[in-house]
């Protein structure tokens, strides 16, 4: 079995595992979301397929797969077909550098954080392309919204991450987690002696993550009561399914990044259980919060969304950046 240890083979296997992880997560997060929504709304949620609805994702996928892939006349065929792939593949690539435990990481590169953000930005372009290629008015309005929204929220997110980078001094995600060893107050979230505004930066990160993944209350891309289905209006069957998967892949990615950067990644707060368990616990706690937010709040108004970013989040994150650089210089 020596070939398993060869680097290319290992990487390939890891990527296959990530694809399976993303696929399963997308399928079962949809179920979790629908079940969660059911609980929030005092109804059972899907409960017909399989025991307690556990086979619902299988039925959903079977339905989506069996549908005809319609490419409407007048669309830019190549871009129209390419866009779903361009949405999902960067999210999968990014997960390659996320450390699920000390050793469970597909490719530990020392600029992991940079890679996550550079690949993560492709998402915007892909959604814009899908909107443009659809040649549908709702899709184009939605695409224009997505671009301005994502550009606006990328800035505070990056400012927050730069603040964090100044604290950690490395872009190696595994190294960032290692620095947070010990009790939970060693997590970056609670490192108030480095920067008293650390919890605030986490909140900003979380809000930006919601906006970047186009989740409610910032779901301008889909906004079904205004724009029918936004950029996804013209997509049928698995084309739509892939967008849907990409949304959940991006949530998983954003939440794992939040876990790694702020919640100590695979570090256990009290030395019990292997790291991967803790990582997944923290990850799914964050994902649950994302679902919770969606079913609690109405959608924001588009210009309020931009106001929030430019007038509130960016000044605060700039301030935290200055504050932590000053504190690092002083102490």
């Amino acid at each position, binding site marked *: 079995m020596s070939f398993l240890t060869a680097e290319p083979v290992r990487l390939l296997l890891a990527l296959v595992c990530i694809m399976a992880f993303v696929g399963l997560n997308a399928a079962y997060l949809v179920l979790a979301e629908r079940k969660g*929504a059911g609980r*929030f*709304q*005092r*109804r059972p949620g899907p409960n017909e397929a399989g025991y307690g609805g556990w086979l619902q994702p299988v039925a959903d996928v079977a339905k989506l797969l069996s549908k005809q892939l319609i490419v409407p006349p*007048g669309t830019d065929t190549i871009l129209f077909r390419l866009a779903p792939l361009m949405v999902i593949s960067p999210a999968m690539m990014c997960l390659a550098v996320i450390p699920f435990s000390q050793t469970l990481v597909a490719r530990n590169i020392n600029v992991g954080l940079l890679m996550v953000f550079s690949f993560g930005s492709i998402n915007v372009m892909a959604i814009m392309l899908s909107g443009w290629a659809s*040649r*549908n*008015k*709702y899709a*184009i*309005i939605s695409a*224009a*919204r997505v671009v301005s929204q994502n550009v606006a929220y990328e800035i505070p997110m990056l400012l927050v991450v730069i603040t964090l980078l100044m604290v950690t001094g490395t872009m190696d995600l595994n190294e960032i987690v290692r620095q947070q060893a010990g009790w939970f107050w060693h997590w970056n979230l609670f490192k108030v002696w480095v920067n008293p505004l650390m919890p605030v930066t986490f909140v900003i990160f979380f809000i930006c993550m919601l906006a970047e993944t186009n989740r*409610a*209350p910032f*779901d301008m891309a889909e*906004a*079904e*009561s*205004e*724009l*029918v289905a936004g950029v996804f209006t013209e997509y049928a069957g698995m084309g739509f399914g892939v967008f849907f998967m990409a949304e959940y892949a991006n949530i998983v990615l954003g939440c794992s990044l939040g876990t790694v950067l702020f919640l100590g990644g695979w570090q256990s707060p009290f030395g019990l259980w292997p790291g991967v368990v803790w990582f997944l616990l923290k990850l799914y706690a964050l994902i649950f919060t994302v679902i919770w937010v969606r*079913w*609690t*709040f*109405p*959608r*924001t*108004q*588009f*210009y*309020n969304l931009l106001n929030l970013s430019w007038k509130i989040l960016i000044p605060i994150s700039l301030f935290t950046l200055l504050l932590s650089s000053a504190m690092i210089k002083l102490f």
Partner: protein
Amino acid sequence: MIAPTDIPSRTNPQETFVLNLGPQHPAAHGVLRIKMTMDGEYVTRAEPIPGYIHRMHEKMGENRTWTQFLPNTGRIDYLSALHYNHAFVGAVERAARIEVPPRAEYIRVITSELNRISSHLVWWSAYLLDLGGFTPLLYAFADREKILDLLEAITGSRLTYCYFRFGGLCNDIDDAFIQGTRAFVAQMRPRLKMYRDLVTDNIILRKRLEGIGPISAELCRKYGATGPVLRGAGIAYDVRKVEPYSVYSQLDFHIPVFPEGDSMARYRVRMAEMEQSLRIIEQALDKLPAGPVMGKVPRVLRLPAGDYCYAVEAARGRHMVRVVSDNKDIPYRVKLRTPSFSNLSLYEEASKGMMLPDALALLGSLDLVIPDIDR
């Protein structure tokens, strides 16, 4: 598909496009079509095109007997069917000088107010759905379900009621209904408080509604808008107070008025109205007299020749029925003045220059029922 626009626009026509909102659009809540000339995300002109669900109710009134038209009234505004029952029944009673027993009048008020609450609950949940809040829908429908169960037990139907008769009601209420209604009133009050705390005071919702879609009293007067739209513009016009019908003059309630004129004002008017309706129901149940629920009505109804009107305050505003009789057993003319039609007609002027999501927030705040527009 992006087709070149043929709508003349004040701005450069090459920069605008036409967005056909509907007839099958999630925010239209039915088959309303709005032809929007858009400049980017700004609406330069929104032209409502009704008519997709026209059923010729007025014409149908002219070729069936007075009694036979009664079920139609419940299908005009299906969400406040009892008010529409009331208006038609009232017009005929006024014409034929039929005395309605007091018990029947009280029961009419109780059921009408229950119907108003259920209608406002549907509006509230659907409006929040428009604004992207999904969860309130299920809560509101759970409350509405109780009203529907109560009304089903006495009227026999859950939505398109045909409960009122010329001279009274087809069915008396029983103790189960009275107790169920009292229980509903008791549990609806904390629910309304919960909705206020959780939804109305939510910062996202307030930012989306406050100052959005201002409608002045002048605009309302121009287009004949009534109901919560007018009361949200600061004018305390309510048919129940202005020209009291039935036994409303004997009941103590006030008309919620909010002078701001924005979507939030209309929202608050409806939320406050639900509380007032609960008050009315409580009082009417306390005062409920004994006696028959059906007055003396001739076997074959022939209205004396003439022109008769009767207006009620439906959930969406002033609903008036005008019947013209030429002393036959079928009406010469049935004219329905429906609130949604007037409320929609101000939309084109009110929505000018708004952004698309705001324009849809305004549309939702008008509380349109499309069959009420087309009838």
